[in-house]
């Protein structure tokens, strides 16, 4: 109904995406240093639900592999959702949480909280995500401020300000890392981005943030579509543009913070996933946003699977996998944009 002939129907897309997510998650749980048959995965899940878990295999599946896969899915969905929002709000195809510096801001916030709460594990679970959100939101507002002249947001300045701020924040983060020697290895692990330390408490920590960040945008897809027309036209059609933007930026920052707090800096997922979805499903956010969330989850679950199996038993940071795929994709977008102009 809302798509053009070039695009795939929702009736096909959403079942395929859902099946894809289930498939990716089952594969993520089943494959690894010790592989388990897919049937065994489902069996273990069943036993876990009924409280009859038994054996080493069940512990591996429910206590190690499953939280890791669920966390990767949550983080992937959060990053892709944030990317889709930034691209809609700034009408800039190159916007994503990483490039805009929001990830770095969240990272610095999380890092400060991490260092400050050394030894207080319970406090850390609350403080790290909150500080990550504060860092993300402050960075976002600063980047927008820097890129605006007389109320107009320049798309090139936006990216430049994001990248520049990203470097500055990374420098501050490195400095903090050096001065807090005793925690350096833990910090380095976290910063490189990955799910090696995944556990159910982590999921409990970020799931509410993710839901809180995703719910408002999912309920505002019609308004997000108006933003396609530009700020002024959206206003003519009844949208309170400034207030809406702020709400959506807060939502995107919340999702970014949720991702960064547990998984460190993972680049390009927020950039690539919404683009791929847009190519297949079109720009209508009623389809684009939910599909990006699911696709983001699939991509990161698979990327993590690659990261821990490609040169097993050595595990590479998942950020490397996404960067290897994302870098060329970013260049392709840039070049395509140039040609179109």
């Amino acid at each position: 109904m809302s798509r053009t002939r070039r695009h795939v129907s929702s009736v096909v897309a959403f079942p395929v995406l859902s099946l894809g997510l289930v498939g990716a998650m089952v594969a993520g749980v089943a494959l690894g240093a010790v592989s388990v048959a897919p049937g065994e995965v489902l069996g273990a899940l069943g036993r876990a639900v009924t409280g009859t878990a038994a054996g080493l295999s069940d512990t591996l599946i429910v206590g190690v592999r499953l939280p890791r896969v669920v966390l990767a899915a949550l983080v992937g969905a959060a990053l892709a959702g944030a990317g889709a929002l930034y691209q809609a709000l700034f009408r800039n195809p190159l916007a994503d949480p990483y490039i805009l510096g929001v990830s770095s801001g969240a990272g610095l916030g999380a890092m400060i909280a991490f260092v400050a709460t050394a030894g207080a594990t319970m406090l850390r679970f609350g403080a790290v995500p909150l500080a990550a959100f504060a860092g993300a939101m402050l960075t976002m507002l600063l980047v927008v401020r820097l890129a605006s002249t007389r109320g107009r947001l320049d798309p090139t300045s936006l990216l430049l300000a994001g990248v520049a701020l990203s470097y500055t924040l990374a420098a501050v983060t490195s400095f903090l890392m050096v001065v807090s020697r005793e925690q350096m290895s833990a910090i380095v692990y976290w910063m490189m981005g990955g799910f090696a330390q995944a556990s159910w408490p982590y999921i409990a920590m970020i799931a509410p943030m993710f839901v809180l960040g995703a719910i408002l945008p999912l309920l505002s897809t019609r308004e997000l579509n108006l933003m396609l027309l530009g700020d002024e036209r959206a206003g003519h059609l009844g949208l309170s543009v400034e207030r809406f933007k702020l709400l959506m930026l807060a939502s995107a920052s919340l999702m970014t913070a949720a991702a960064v707090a547990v998984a460190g800096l993972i680049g390009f997922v927020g950039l690539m996933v919404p683009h791929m979805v847009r190519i297949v499903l079109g720009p209508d956010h009623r389809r684009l946003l939910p599909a990006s969330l699911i696709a983001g989850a699939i991509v990161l679950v698979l990327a993590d699977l690659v990261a821990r199996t490609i040169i097993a038993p050595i595990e590479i940071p998942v950020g490397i996998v996404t960067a290897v795929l994302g870098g060329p994709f970013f260049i392709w977008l840039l070049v395509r944009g140039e040609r179109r102009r």
Partner: protein
Amino acid sequence: MTTEHLIAYSGARVGYGATTIVSDASLAVHAGEVVGLVGPNGAGKSTLLRAVTGDADLLGGTLSLAGVDSGALSALQRARLVGVVPQQVTAAFSVEAREFVTMGRHPHLARFAVPGERDREVVERAMRLTDTLHLAEKPTDELSGGDLQRLALAQALAQEPQLLLLDEPTSHLDLNHRLQVLDLVRELARDEGIGVLAVFHDLDLAARYSDRIAVVASGTVAPAEIPARAITTATVREVFGVRAVVGIDPVTGTVSVTPVLRDGAVALVARGRVLVIGGSGCGSQLMRRLVLAGWDVISGALNAGDADQVLAEALGVDYAHIPPFAPMDPESVGRVVALADSSDAIVVSDVPFGHGNVDNLRIAAERAESGTPVVLLGEIEGRDYAEGAAADLWARARAAGAQSAADVDVVVRLLEAIASP
């Protein structure tokens, strides 16, 4: 109903931040009427519209929409009241045209509602009226600028507004669609009582489709008046710096503006004064070219309603006035003699001469004999309808040293030589 103010600017000052663009604007748009805004680029026409949508700032005075202070309206309330068709419509994304138009239903939809039967009907009607139904399934990024502009109008109509703001709504449309869109706007005003405030660049279109026109220039807004009073030779010259023939188009019956020359194009040299003997439009090209060349042009006797008389008025050329189709009388002869006395040179155009106007030629021939430089355009053969009198006068002038010119260019060159020997 028709006396209801949909927009009322009262002593309004509009601009951006600290910058005032238009000051002391007072203008009202009533239900069912089309008010046109005309004026030079950058005069603030669009800014006036943008103050209504909240995109420009109201820096002083008041602006009310349907009786409510514009600042008190939320974006949503405003969108139910005002539909906007922007100057430039861009849609660099790919949704179906019908979906694009349906976006106009936003202000009428509850927070999480999906468009229902009535919304679909409104959209269907808006697309039918704007002749865009056949585009319904097309993706917006594959449409032409003209199609997008009509879709933008459909989108605005889908808002079911009481008021339409049009910023040069037809700038990207071909002739057919331009008239179609403006005819539609007129119908909507007449049949549905929609008030329209529209910026026009084309003065003829403004006059043809507006009930009243307000001229925006030099940072202020003139009171809105009927087209024939708002657009005159004087206002066109003052506001645009263009001398134009402003008349009533005999076919449409509306004001029509034919630009003759820009004041800025007139040569800044004082060449002296030249008397042009014209009539029946034969003197028009001469008068225009000589004014452009810097001459102070005056004209012999011209009948009211004659093409040359209309142009003389447009150019501000002084001439001896005679009633329509009347011959020259002693009074007008005396007037032409006086004009000839004040001239440095005389040009006789290739106008046919009869008993009614042969006195113009007589005066030229006599001046030639008394030493005034005279240039004669073309030959007299075939245009003497005064039983040989014109041919005799022509010969007298030639004998007295009047120069002959084959065309207007030669006339201009010969006179230049006379002015600067």
